[in-house]
């Protein structure tokens, strides 16, 4: 054990320690402050005999003369085990539910290692979330990272909880028909970074009520917990998720909330180091840093488990071009965007369909996954909804009377689409067959000649006919 009392500077969450020897980059540090409190940190930079240490739990109570600094010779690790299921931990992976310590099966560095691209298996198993706006138009697949772009006051937590509650993979071994829910071991890993007690409590309650808590691992760093600790929290969660997915063959859904606070913690450290800032004061390496979190989603060839990520971030001022949603969007495989206007009009879930996107949907839908007409129908619904919204804008300026008959049909379609397709109850679990059936009912509102994006054969087969034979699609 190498212990020093040679702290020279303390700046924000950083300490500069002098006259050290054999310190390595990234090494874990234990700090003991004069009042006896202990705190963890790691080495950010080492220059000859001077080490720069970031303290995860803040530097309140530290001084230069009496602070003891111990270098532990290893990096920050998490002891993982199956027994973590059903437990609540703090942001650094220590039990926070009063339960006993975990006896680790193995200890892993929380930084993980990148998955070799050749070892990845392409995510193409459709996950039925039971939410039409997602399943029908922007489907989630196993191993995907699909963030929710939200804003303050929007129901992103409800939506995330609904996804966690309802998610199921379909078993399509039966051929063309839409399959039933497949068997398989599921787990939810939940990481809270800087969210309020109320928000965290909502999730815990939600997990308890549906007894999902037994299949969940929670890491909580709340708003009043040390900010720098948040840098470690998502990595703790993902280390646990990787163990459950690749060692225990489970399908893990990881919910990270709120990535905005994570990035702010990163900015705080960067500012304290006086680094050259990138946009809006965030460090230039924000993209790379976020990638080391998001890219830990995926599937690996030859392993049964998978990691699906649903990070949540609140966009400052609902601005999608803010660096955090912007860089996130460049890394993740799409995004679900929540819209304040829909929310104000009382539509839940307020998913803004047009800017939302799932990049992997082409691989996750179609015959054998959902149904042959899914892709064409979803394209048609997108296009028609976009046109309907455009016509509505026009109607605002010119009045409804100025619209052409076609445009009027699209306006009616857009309204019906929001009301029947997007809107659903927070506890309503729609099967993909139901979602597609609603989609076809809505498509029937459009002139037949406008269904350009759907193959003729599917229109013949699935479009409800006028004589009320609407169940033809199901």
């Amino acid at each position, binding site marked *: 054990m190498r212990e020093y009392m040679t702290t020279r500077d303390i700046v924000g969450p950083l300490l500069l320690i002098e006259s050290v020897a054999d310190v390595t980059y990234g090494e874990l540090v234990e700090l003991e402050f004069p009042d006896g409190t202990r705190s963890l940190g790691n080495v950010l930079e080492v220059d000859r005999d001077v080490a720069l240490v970031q303290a995860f739990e803040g530097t309140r109570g530290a001084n230069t003369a009496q602070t003891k600094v111990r270098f532990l010779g290893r990096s920050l690790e998490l002891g993982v085990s199956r027994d973590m299921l059903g437990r609540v931990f703090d942001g650094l992976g220590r039990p926070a539910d009063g339960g006993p310590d975990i006896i680790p099966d193995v200890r892993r560095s929380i930084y993980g290692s*990148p998955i070799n691209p050749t070892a990845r298996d*392409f995510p193409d198993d459709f996950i039925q979330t039971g939410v039409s706006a997602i399943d029908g138009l922007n489907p989630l697949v196993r191993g995907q990272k699909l963030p929710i772009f939200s804003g303050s006051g929007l129901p992103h937590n409800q939506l995330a909880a609904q996804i966690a509650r309802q998610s199921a993979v379909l078993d399509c071994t039966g051929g063309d028909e839409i399959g039933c829910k497949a068997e398989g071991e599921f787990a939810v890993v939940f990481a809270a970074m800087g969210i309020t007690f109320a928000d965290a409590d909502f999730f815990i309650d939600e997990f308890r009520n549906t007894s999902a808590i037994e299949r969940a691992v929670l890491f909580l760093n709340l708003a009043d917990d040390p900010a720098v600790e948040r840098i470690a929290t998502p990595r703790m969660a993902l280390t646990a998720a990787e163990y459950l997915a690749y060692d225990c063959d489970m399908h893990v859904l990881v919910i990270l909330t709120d990535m905005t606070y994570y990035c702010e913690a990163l900015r705080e450290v960067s500012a304290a180091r006086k680094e050259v800032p990138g946009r809006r004061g965030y460090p230039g390496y924000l993209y790379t840093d976020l990638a080391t979190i998001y890219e830990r989603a995926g599937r690996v060839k030859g392993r049964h488990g998978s990691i699906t990520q649903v990070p949540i971030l609140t966009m400052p001022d609902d601005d999608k071009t803010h660096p955090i949603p912007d860089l996130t969007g460049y890394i993740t495989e799409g995004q679900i965007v929540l819209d304040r206007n829909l929310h104000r009009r009382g539509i839940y879930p307020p998913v803004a369909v047009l800017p939302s996107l799932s990049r992997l949907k082409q691989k996750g839908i179609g015959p054998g996954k959902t149904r042959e007409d899914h892709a064409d129908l979803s394209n048609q619904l997108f296009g028609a909804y976009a046109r309907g919204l455009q016509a509505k804008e026009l109607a605002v300026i010119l009045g409804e009377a100025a619209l052409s008959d076609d445009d009027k049909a699209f306006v009616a379609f857009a309204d019906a689409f929001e009301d029947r397709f997007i809107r659903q109850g927070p506890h309503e679990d729609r099967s993909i067959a139901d979602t597609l059936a609603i989609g076809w009912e809505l498509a029937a509102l459009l002139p037949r000649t406008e269904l350009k994006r759907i193959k003729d054969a599917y229109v013949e087969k699935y479009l409800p006919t006028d004589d009320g034979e609407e169940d033809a699609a199901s």
Partner: protein
Amino acid sequence: MDQGRIVKVAGPLVVAEGLPSSKMYDLVRVGTEGLMGEIIEMRADRASIQVYEETEGLGPGDPVEATGAPLSVELGPGMLEAVYDGVQRPLDALEAQSGAFITRGMNAPGLDREKRWEFTPVVSAGDRVEGGDIIGTVPENTVIEHRVMVPPGISGAIESISAGEYTVTDPVGRLVADDGTTHDLVMMQVWPVRVPRPYKKKIAADEPLTTGTRVIDTFFPIVKGGVACIPGPFGAGKTVTQHQIAKWSNAEVVIFIGCGERGNEMTDVLMEFPELEDPYSGEPLLKRTVLVANTSNMPVAAREASVYTGITMAEYFRDMGYDVVLQADSTSRWAEAMREISGRLEEMPGDEGFPAYLGTRLASFYERAGKVECLSSDGGAEGARAQAAGSGGPEEASAARSVREDSDEGPTGTAAKRTGSVSVVGSVSPPGGDLSEPVVQNTLRVVKVFWALQDQLAFQRHFPAIDWLTSYSLYLDKITGHWAEEVSPEFRARRDECMAILQRENELAEIVRLVGVEALSPEEQILMETAKSIREDFLQQNAFRDDDQFSSLHEQDRLLEMILLFHKTAIRAHEHGAALKEIFAAPVREHIARAKYLTEDRAAEFDEIASEIETQLVGTGPLREETAVYAGGER
């Protein structure tokens, strides 16, 4: 070699002392695990090193070993179908060593040392050769013939050479250089990535690189040897467009660099390309492809190197006489890697924290593209083969050379000369879709084609979301002649007419927004409908539909012809009294809309559409008899 010591570690940057004889950009081995690194700054006796692997666990006092050589790639048979990381380590070899997750300190040579290749010489003992001359061929796979060349800078007479099965490091023959020294000839060349490979001269590029994507080929074409950039916000379809070009372009070799992008995207390419058929050779696409995958979570310094690794490989295939497309997705991540390293070096930043040399680096990278006359002593591959067949000696070689000198004044090389090209398509990921940011702006200074992706179009599911109003191609005039010969003499005129209609639509759209479509004159209303038809029936293309993802130039021309024919006929019919409503309701419009999905017998189908336009527009109008005089042919 020098053995130095680490004095400082800060992220991917390590500072070492005790490397006095090392040079800038030399490769070094860092720490006890021998991690790869490159010297990027020297101050007194301190060398700053960017390390291509994770540096956690390194500390002052750890050893640094100089290698005395710059970062280089190995070039030779075995590159095609491979997947490399940013410093040319084959990822499947790394997987064999460490499993699904990449750990540190692994080494794997870029080319397989064990595999034997069948070498057939095309020169014989006594022949005089120079750098770049082809000495033999290897059937690397069923698509690409690998042409083994004399490394640049060496010339002399072949002492011996023989056919047989060799590994890339086995001597296939010997060469006596002009100074009397002898060299073993091996199939593998080693080339420093930051140095462009030499060529004889650059020539003007004038042949279209067709991609099968209509908006690109018709409206904003690129040439073989050209440079293009695709900027756009996330979700607008940069990567899909890049993949489409990698899949369907008529290049012979494709180098795809996944630079700081998603792991699943590389997996997609890896799983899809062996399945997809190259429309030109009928073989799996992967056989003509080299992948360089440095995903966003892999070390940032290796990302910086990956574009150089890729372009050096591209140049090598160019030197053999192939047309190569290099795709870098995304150059913004490369620029960010530069920014990160620059920040750690504590350099004075330029715009948005990017280093001041960002523009120079981008420009010198794109400038490595181009169509060239390849380095060689004679007319080209054919010449070399003819020489081999005739077992010609130095006399014949020099004769060939004099032929070359004579034809130097000629336009752009004769058939006998070996030419090759590297086209570069770089995507740019501007923060917030803001095109005024430094990477886009510095890129636009050097590229000739600009495909601007628009998120508004993507929201409407108008794909490819290439904005026809802001995009441009400066190669248009260069290839018009080629179009006239290969496609049809009217193609350029049709393209320009459609472009004019789209421009006009944009102006009229303002009016429509303010006062409604009724305020437009009937001609203008027809124009608006035609513009919509161009947008929906021509520009929109579904990359995921088998019957729509590839469109030949000829089909593109016919499709435009139909749309314009409808336009002109509609105006004519209206002039003779047909109601707009009836014209717009003509069933042939749906036929035009579906024309892009035609798979069989397209020519006949287009003719049928043409006749339907006549019968339905002119044939149904009240002034049918009067217009009959205009309606030639069918009725």
